[in-house]
């Protein structure tokens, strides 16, 4: 099968750093996969996610379908939903939840166009799915860490992505919310969404995950496929 995303000997060096944060990563991600990347702090997990959607400059080749990240970065990012690790808003941030979720669609809506009724419907559905629709008029700066995390996931889903990149999505959630989110991610994956998730706590890996990649010191040290989660 043709991979959705392919990385060939990809390395990323942060500005001013001498040693690359990730080194010679080669990875193929098939459509519909649910992959979890684990590893200790500083292993390069977040760097790998941000390299895949082109937020960090890298060496090597990254392709999404028939598009190359170096030449089609903006078009590729419209196909990928990205949820950063522990996003922080100050209490005066002048945006409400509904605005922020809608921003996830702006790339797809394109220049010189306003959100349509369809866009608003998709945003509403994303908020409902993450159970944040009741917060739609709430300023994002007033949300708890867990609520903001859900809003950021709704924002990523509002772009109707082919693939979701999640960086520590459970970090701000209590146990109940973790299991609810794991169920929702399973539902999304069953509906065909490819998911690549970074976590440092192996006990949080959702049962639907069928592939676990372990990273250490910027390298992939193991890449295991499972029929059933061990």
């Amino acid at each position, binding site marked *: 099968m043709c991979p959705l995303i392919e990385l060939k000997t990809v390395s990323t060096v942060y500005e001013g750093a001498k040693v690359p944060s990730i080194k010679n990563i080669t990875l193929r991600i098939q459509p519909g996969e649910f992959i979890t990347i684990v590893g200790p702090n500083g292993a390069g997990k977040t760097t790998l996610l941000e390299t895949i959607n082109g937020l960090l400059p890298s060496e090597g080749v990254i392709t999404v379908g028939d598009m190359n990240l170096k030449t089609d970065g903006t078009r590729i990012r419209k196909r990928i939903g990205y949820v950063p690790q522990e996003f922080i808003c100050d209490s005066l941030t002048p945006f409400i939840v509904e*605005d922020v979720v809608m*921003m996830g669609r*702006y790339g797809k809506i394109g220049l010189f166009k306003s959100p349509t009724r369809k866009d608003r419907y998709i945003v509403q559905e994303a908020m409902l799915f993450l159970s944040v629709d009741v917060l739609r008029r709430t300023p994002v700066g007033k949300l708890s860490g867990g609520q903001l995390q859900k809003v950021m996931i709704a924002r990523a889903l509002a772009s109707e992505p082919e693939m979701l990149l999640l960086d520590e999505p459970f970090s701000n959630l209590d146990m109940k919310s973790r299991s609810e989110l794991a169920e929702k991610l399973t539902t999304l994956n069953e509906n065909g969404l490819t998911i690549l998730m970074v976590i440092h706590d192996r006990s949080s890996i959702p049962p639907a995950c069928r592939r676990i990649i372990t990273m250490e010191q910027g390298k992939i040290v193991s890449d295991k496929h499972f029929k059933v989660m061990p």
Partner: protein
Amino acid sequence: MSELLILAVSGAILTGVSCSLVGSFVVRMNLSSLGFAMSHAAFAGAALGLVLSLDPLGLAIVFSIGVALLLGPLAEKANLPTNVILGVIFSLMISLGLVFLNLIPQTAMSSVALSILWGSILGMTVTSVLRLLVLSVGIVLIYWLFFKEFQAIMFSRKLAEASGINTRPFYYLILFLTGITVAFSLKLVGGLLVFALMVNPASSAYQFSYDMKKITIVSPIIGVLCCISGIAISFLADLPVGSSIALVSSAIFGAAVVLSPKRKRG
């Protein structure tokens, strides 16, 4: 006298609109330090223009935008925090500006030279008012056309980029508009205080709403209020117009912080 007053008031209204509109972006994007350095660079550029008998406005724009464009590569090459570089640039520009002013022959050390430092109602001409009109209309048009992109960038540039918006052109567009706005506003407010008119009205507007559309409308209203009140105080108390505007805008900001519903608990 009445023509002078009409030009001053028209210039003040347009300066207030353009500065505070650009300011709403500058404040939210934490570009205040950069804008501060740009305003002093514009002052240095205008002073150099007077020394060389070149167009002060043109050089003010070149200096102001030059600082914005130089900052990134300079911070990268020197491997220093941006704020350190901005601190150095700020002191360099204010020193250059004062040196250039000192080099202007005494006969030419006219009100024009001093006005780029302190601002002057007398500095407003039909041409400068027309320039400000074109600038204000241009900024409103750009905001209207790209409001959703600006909104996304103001929330988080990184997330805007991740959702498929090419943020770089918008970011540079704002730097460019900031540079031009600073340069065009020099005549009225002066190089030392033009930045107060960018930051204070926008920061005041941010205290009252979570809606960027409302902030974008309220910010220029406060900006105009600051300029008109500043001019009135300048006329009545014979104070430099730039200082008067900065004092009014600071007072409004102070009141906004105290009265802000966003800061009330519960």
